[in-house]
């Protein structure tokens, strides 16, 4: 019952949208695909759905090639980031549409559609057309339509990205519950938001520049990112990655004072490396430390992301809670050396800090 992507490669205008992507997607599991815009996430979904061709590679369902199977015979449901519904049909008719196409008897289709609308909390609006619904409600209809089909493959392409912050938070919660009832469906969910990928995924697939950068459980991906690229996408804000050197008892990082070499960095030869400084390992204050200038402040949910300029090095600090700090303020920076990541110069993970018992 699994879906296998076999070295999918797709070039468009001399640019690799997918570059040798090989994956095994298991039924009943939620696969979240995490990556920046342009990392190949949408391309992957479109190939799985049969909406785009590949230059080479194949998609197998139960070992059978889907290459010659057109989209309308693939039993694939999709939720787009734009809220796509049929404008001329009511919410209920929208959800029934694919069921009727699949020759489900009318009564049965209606029952299942009503059930799906109830799951997404839209029973009271099932007679409305999409134009009379809010963005969040429209996306709920789209999700209900995809769920009601019980398709073999369920693809969701950044379904929450166009919603407001609070609505996103709420729907993300609900999706966890909705996904728990998908049974034997293969679910693939793309996102640019690390928290979303980690929270929803049984397995996280990190994509970077058209390639699969790492596949693993949320804990593995977060705690031991295979490359600097993974380390950056899986952290919000992205991990600071700065050239540095191991020198005897110390770690030297441009802009910062010499840091003591923590125990997890023992056993590595002295020399140049890339040092990963997670944004939460940095703290700013008024005490002693290296002085930095605040260049930009973002508030995300309940965290403050403070971007600073440290003698020419751009760093981002993540502070818990919401703090009133202003652009242009001078603050002192300190780093927790026990939380540093070490990457070789080509960006491969060398050492990760020991994490909590997870």
């Amino acid at each position: 019952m699994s879906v296998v992507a076999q070295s999918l490669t797709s070039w468009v205008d001399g640019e690799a949208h997918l570059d040798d992507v090989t994956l095994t997607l298991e039924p009943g599991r939620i696969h979240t695909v995490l990556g920046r815009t342009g990392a190949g996430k949408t391309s992957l979904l479109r190939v799985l759905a049969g909406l785009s061709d590949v230059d080479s590679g194949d998609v197998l369902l139960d070992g059978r090639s889907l290459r010659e199977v057109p989209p309308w015979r693939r039993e694939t449901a999709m939720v787009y980031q734009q809220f796509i519904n049929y404008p001329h049909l009511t919410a209920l008719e929208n959800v029934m549409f694919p069921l009727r196409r699949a020759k489900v008897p009318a009564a049965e289709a209606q029952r299942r559609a009503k059930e799906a609308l109830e799951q997404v909390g839209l029973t009271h609006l099932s007679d409305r057309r999409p134009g009379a619904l809010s963005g969040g409600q429209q996306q709920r209809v789209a999700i209900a339509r995809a769920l009601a089909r019980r398709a073999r493959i369920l693809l969701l392409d950044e379904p929450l990205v166009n919603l407001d912050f609070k609505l996103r938070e709420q729907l993300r919660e609900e999706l966890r519950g909705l996904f728990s009832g998908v049974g034997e469906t293969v679910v693939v969910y793309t996102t640019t938001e690390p928290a979303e990928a980690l929270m929803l995924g049984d397995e996280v697939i990190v994509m970077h520049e058209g390639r699969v950068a790492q596949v693993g459980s949320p804990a593995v991906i977060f705690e031991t990112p295979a490359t600097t690229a993974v380390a950056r996408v899986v952290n919000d804000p992205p991990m600071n990655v700065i050239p540095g050197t191991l020198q005897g008892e110390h770690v030297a990082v441009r802009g910062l004072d010499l840091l003591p070499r923590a125990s997890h960095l023992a056993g590595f030869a002295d020399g140049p490396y890339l040092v990963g400084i997670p944004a939460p390992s940095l703290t700013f204050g008024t005490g002693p430390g290296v002085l930095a200038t605040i260049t930009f402040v973002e508030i995300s949910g309940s965290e403050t992301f403070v971007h600073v300029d440290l003698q020419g090095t751009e760093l981002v600090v993540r502070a818990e809670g919401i703090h009133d700090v202003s652009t242009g303020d001078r603050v002192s920076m300190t780093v927790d050396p026990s939380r540093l990541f070490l990457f070789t110069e080509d960006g491969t993970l060398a050492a990760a800090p020991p994490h909590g018992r997870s």
Partner: protein
Amino acid sequence: MATLTLENVAQTYNPGEDPDRWALKPLELTLESGRTYALVGPSGCGKTTLLNILSGLVTPSHGRVTFDGVDVTSTPTRLRNIAQVFQFPVIYRSMTVRDNLAFPLECRGWPRSRIEERVRAVAEALGLADGLDVPASRLSADEKQLISLGRGLVRDDVAAVLMDEPLTVIDPQLKLSLRRKIRQLSDEFAPTVIYVTHDQYEAMTFAQELLVMSEGRLIQRGTPEQLFESPSSTFVGWFVGSPSMNFLRGTLERGAARVGEHLIDLAWSPPVPHGSEVTVGIRPEYIRIVDGGSHPGDASETSVHGRLVAVQDHGESRVCEIQVREQQVAVKVRREVHVPKVGSFVDLGLPRSKCLPYVEGRLATCGD
């Protein structure tokens, strides 16, 4: 730049309507020169009405609007000297970037050399100095929106810049950079800015001060930190922060809140009689999971017992959902913190100073 004041301003579209149903309930407001404000709230909360009153599109049915002390209550929009950025970029597609930026100055009869100088300065700040002769129709949506803003900024005498959900039509992927750019521009040019949005992320990142509105009322005004630390209502507690503030319903007993078998100490005792309903508001960040055997809570903390029903991995932190009697409490802990198995019973430590009392949805005043 000007200081904007609203004196007892209210708006109803049907004279004689019940004041409780007015689109905007009576409001006193001073917006100081050179500061950035965000008007936030769900749709229909009155923020657009308020914006229209400031811009002059709507003459308020009650009260007075002044700009730097001058009464402008019934002054039409074009005489108020304000700049507006709408949801959809408003630019002259047939003109070049330069002509678009120069247009407001030409209309005011500025000398050519001064226009050129000013346009160049603004274009540089917008990051469009290299493309001054590009026709505006060739720009991307976010660049067009920057030009809309730039047209407001070129006028150095502009009283205020009003922005109405300026990021609505921008691709989510470009929103971050545009938001950052707009923030930097307003830092650099320091106009009085009123920014309307229903997205708290946008509002908090953009504005020095937030005005939270709901049902035609200004519910709370303050810096992001103030809204986070002491939300004036349960709505603000929900709206600001992620996950939202926890609210535990209970009754007042000896100055504390009785929730089932727990008596939760409050930051202060609300001035309501014994036995009244009181809701404890506490942020998920401030709740501690008391690890079996490690330091139990001291007097500054109330211990609450519950069952762990779910754990969400957010990467840097985890959010634990704990069932306390029939109520849910979210607790946010850092990744390093040990989290027991789902289904097990845990003790929570609720610091007294962070347990805020809410009565009828409003933060209670200090009773002492």
